[in-house]
């Protein structure tokens, strides 16, 4: 495991507690969450389904307000969604009434970036997600993987501080998913992005993350954190498949054990 130099804290979550619904009919979704996201990290969150992973992402995005504790971005409380935290959802939320290019350009346009600059941005990021020449297509002409690539380009076009991804490859077939994992890793490395990535796939987490957070079943708490570095090796070798070795299996088994202990109870 690599020793990373401590970098700037972008997101700081302190004693976060989240209750859904009103009194009498409320659900405690998250409890006692303490988490930091540092610049340049690829943080993966694993946990049994219904454990509040998405709730955590929505709180960071600013869609939900914490019931207790605080959620800070660069020291300031997060009060609502803004373009510094881009979100990629599990199923694409591309707007079908806009072309692929217009979808990518939506963010910069909303921020009143000059038109020629916007053009450059969309060209650059469509190329980065390997969709050059698809700009004028309608979104519904694309395959599932392509749609997620456009959704990614749309978020990247805003140069957000943090990219939040909620099981973005969960609906894709295995082959497409592997390619998408390589793509997101390359983009993360090249752009030096910071990514908060939710998944239920341990192998996906291990092949992408620099740090993995395992959550308990509801109410979601953080059970354990793992610092891992397989993604660096994969990037260096420019490969898609993880080199399975003992270290890999040790971490994987420990994570699986943790998650299974939550399901069996």
């Amino acid at each position: 495991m690599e020793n990373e130099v401590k970098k700037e804290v972008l997101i700081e979550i302190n004693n976060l507690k989240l209750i859904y619904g009103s009194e009498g009919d409320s659900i405690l979704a998250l409890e006692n969450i303490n988490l930091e996201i540092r610049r340049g990290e690829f943080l993966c969150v694993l946990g049994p389904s219904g454990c509040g992973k998405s709730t955590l992402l929505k709180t960071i995005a600013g869609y939900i307000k914490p019931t207790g504790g605080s959620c800070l971005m660069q020291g300031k409380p997060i009060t609502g969604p803004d373009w510094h935290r881009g979100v990629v959802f599990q199923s694409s939320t591309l707007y079908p009434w806009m072309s692929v290019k217009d979808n990518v350009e939506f963010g910069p346009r909303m921020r009143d970036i000059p038109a020629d600059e916007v053009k450059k941005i969309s060209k650059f990021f469509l190329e980065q997600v390997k969709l050059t020449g698809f700009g004028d297509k309608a979104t519904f002409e694309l395959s599932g993987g392509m749609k997620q690539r456009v959704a990614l380009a749309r978020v990247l076009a805003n140069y957000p501080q943090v990219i939040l991804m909620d099981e973005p490859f969960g609906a894709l077939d295995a082959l497409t998913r592997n390619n998408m994992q390589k793509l997101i890793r390359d983009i993360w490395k090249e752009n030096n992005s910071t990514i908060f990535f939710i998944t239920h796939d341990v192998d996906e987490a291990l092949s992408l993350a620099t740090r993995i957070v395992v959550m308990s079943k509801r109410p979601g708490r953080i059970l354990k954190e793992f610092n891992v570095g397989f993604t660096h090796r994969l990037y260096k070798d420019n490969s898609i498949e993880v080199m399975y070795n003992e270290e890999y299996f040790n971490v994987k088994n420990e994570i699986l054990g943790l998650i299974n202990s939550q399901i069996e109870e």
Partner: protein
Amino acid sequence: MDSEKQTLSKKDPEKEKRKNKNEKKLTVGTWVVILIAWYLITKFEIFSPTLLPSPSRVLTTFFRLLEDGYNGVSILSHLRASFRRLFLALALANATAVPLGLLSGYFSKIEAIIDSVVEFYRPLPPLAYYTLLILWFGIDDKSKIILLFLAAFAPIYLACVSAVSKINENYILSAKSLGANQKNVFFKIVLPACLPEIFTGIRTAFGVSYTTLVSAEMIAATSGIGWMVFDASNFLKSDVIFVGIIIMGITGVLIDAGLRFLERKIVYWKGHV
């Protein structure tokens, strides 16, 4: 889930085309049968020709009406009178029902004000309150346009409310996370997302107000295609009644086809939301 939906919607285009062709044949065949039956019934005079005119007589009446008009007024100006009422009312209904419907879907307080009123008058047969409108606004076009406006308002309004409630929440959340403000969310996301359903509402509104128009013209008018049919029935001119009904039917179908054409052009992404 996504890919599943895609494969389901992907149909074999060749098969589709063949199916369409067969169905078109059936549609044309149905009309040929209807026309032949009509011809035979009148040929053997099963009913009195005063009640059921022959196709050829209806056709000659049609050309006569085209040339001389009905009671000295050309058939086109009757149609013009009808459609002026119809389209003014529809334009007015669109201009008010779309914004009010979208706002109602957006803000529950506005819905609380408008919705119950719409729900109350919507099931009423328009002709029931038409008498009141005549008393208030006079017997000329004003009362008719208001009547048609009311008939058209409800379906468009309700379509808008339901469209807003069905919007994919993540569309709005993504837009906010991409930097869109409240106004942009409304005009760039909510409005286009609702357009397919708004179009359906407009087509329903057209149908409702068209039938209302014809009945209103039968009650109180001195022009319009509905009045022509009503007047002809007073004098047992069944051939004129036939021509009137056929014109109403064909114009109705044509206008709906026009609306559907616009729908395909404007909301070409319908079904992909």
